């Protein structure tokens, strides 16, 4: 299967200064991660991380969906297209879904979508799908921290970027 590039090496120069992915006004580039969290488990887990005052990097922006099964792979492509450097999809642990089978479909669809995006050139570490229950606030915080470090090592996402199109 496709060879994924080692940490950051293949992603062109290290992200110093204002590069394509940098947010305006921030000297150092910060990874921008879009998170899809299911209302019953992972969103509640994220809330628990809040009520437990666990600290984690502010790189993730969460979109609440009723179930991880609601996440259409096209949303993920749209996120990468519009400037996301990483996408997190978090659902209930298989077997615990509030709608009983929603996350089984998530697991199938996003397994295929993730490998297909990898085939198109997006490093699979930019798309993380994980299961976080309502009582796993710590796991949510750890997942965000781990993913931020991984995406920071990979640098800003170059694939699907209009800037690149204009460049060559």
């Amino acid at each position, binding site marked *: 299967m496709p060879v994924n590039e080692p940490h950051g090496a293949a992603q062109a120069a290290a992200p110093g200064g204002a590069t394509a992915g940098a947010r305006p006004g921030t000297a150092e580039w910060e990874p921008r991660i879009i998170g899809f969290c299911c209302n019953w488990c992972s969103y509640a887990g994220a809330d628990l991380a809040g009520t437990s005052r666990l600290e984690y990097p502010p790189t993730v922006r969460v979109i609440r969906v009723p179930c991880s099964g609601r996440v259409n792979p096209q949303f993920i492509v749209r996120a990468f297209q519009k400037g996301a450097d990483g996408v997190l999809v978090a659902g209930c642990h298989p077997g615990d879904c509030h709608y009983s089978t929603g996350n*089984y479909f998530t*697991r*199938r669809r996003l397994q*295929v979508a993730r490998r297909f995006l990898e085939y198109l050139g997006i490093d699979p570490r930019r798309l993380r799908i994980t299961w976080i229950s309502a009582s796993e606030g710590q796991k949510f915080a750890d997942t965000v921290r781990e993913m931020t470090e991984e995406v920071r090592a990979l640098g800003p996402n170059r694939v699907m970027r209009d800037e690149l*199109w204009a460049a060559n």
Partner: protein
Amino acid sequence: MGGELKTASGGMTGVRSGVGSELAERAAGLLAGGEVRMFLGYGAGRTPLRVRPRHVLRPEAAGGLVWNEFCAPSLAKYLLEEQEEEGRVGVLVKACDLRAVKRLVADRRVERERVLLVGVGCPGVVDAGKVEALLARAVPGEMVEEAGVRDGVLVVQTRSGVREFPREEYLLERCLHCEDPNPRDVDLFVGPEVAPWPARPHDYAEVAEVAALGAAERAAYWDRQFARCLRCFACRNVCPACSCRECCFDVWEPMWLPREVSVSEQYMFHFTRAFHVAGRCVDCGECERVCPVGIPLMKLNRALQKEIAELFGVERPWEPQEKEPLAMYTPDDPDFH
């Protein structure tokens, strides 16, 4: 197949080869008998290397139907519009076309009883685009006057002379994979059964080529491919798995695919088109054949077929499955770490 060089031109009045005439008679019989209100087959094309779909309504017009190695296009998708009219439609199907029709029936977009399938053994069809490209390079500017396949060799006559193309060179890529050139369980079968030839296995070799590249090279590769895309939607229009009444790319609200032509929108289009047919693509290769700018669309479709085969143990993902792989689950599907 045979037939002299001349007759192969398939001109309106040309003497029919064996199968061609049998087909024309059967079509006329069906139309005259009222079994079908229309017969869908092939007629002569713009150049001897190509044919054109032909909707025959009256028995006497059946004479225009032809059958030769240039009948590459799949007629399945035309059945979609015909569904809106009453009555049954007859259609000529090769083995790969039959899979396309099965796909439309499985997706409940075409009702099996309203279609009369006329099967024909297929000797392997010519990739007109490839041959024309070779000719253009060899004898630029010259028109093809005559063309025909004799004993497995494609003979093409142009102004400056005759050129020959061996079978491996002229065949469509999908024909190399064809395991059984004779369509099974059709309503009628015209002509003799064709002997199968050693088929190249479905080993996703071309998928692996690109997969072996590093992530950046892969991204650059697809950038180059998608950069050529004109968004003419030919691939969608010809695909038997793309049978939506109104495609999401045409919907105004929500704007799944903004009309702007840019590298990121190209990704959105090609990702979505391939993902929408994932698990349902019948590997008929029409999308790649009709693409005016030659984007390797089968690499995308087959990459998805490979994932689905590996992840969910679907041995032959190009055959319509009893349950669509992405519309079902098993509790012990492979999980994310």
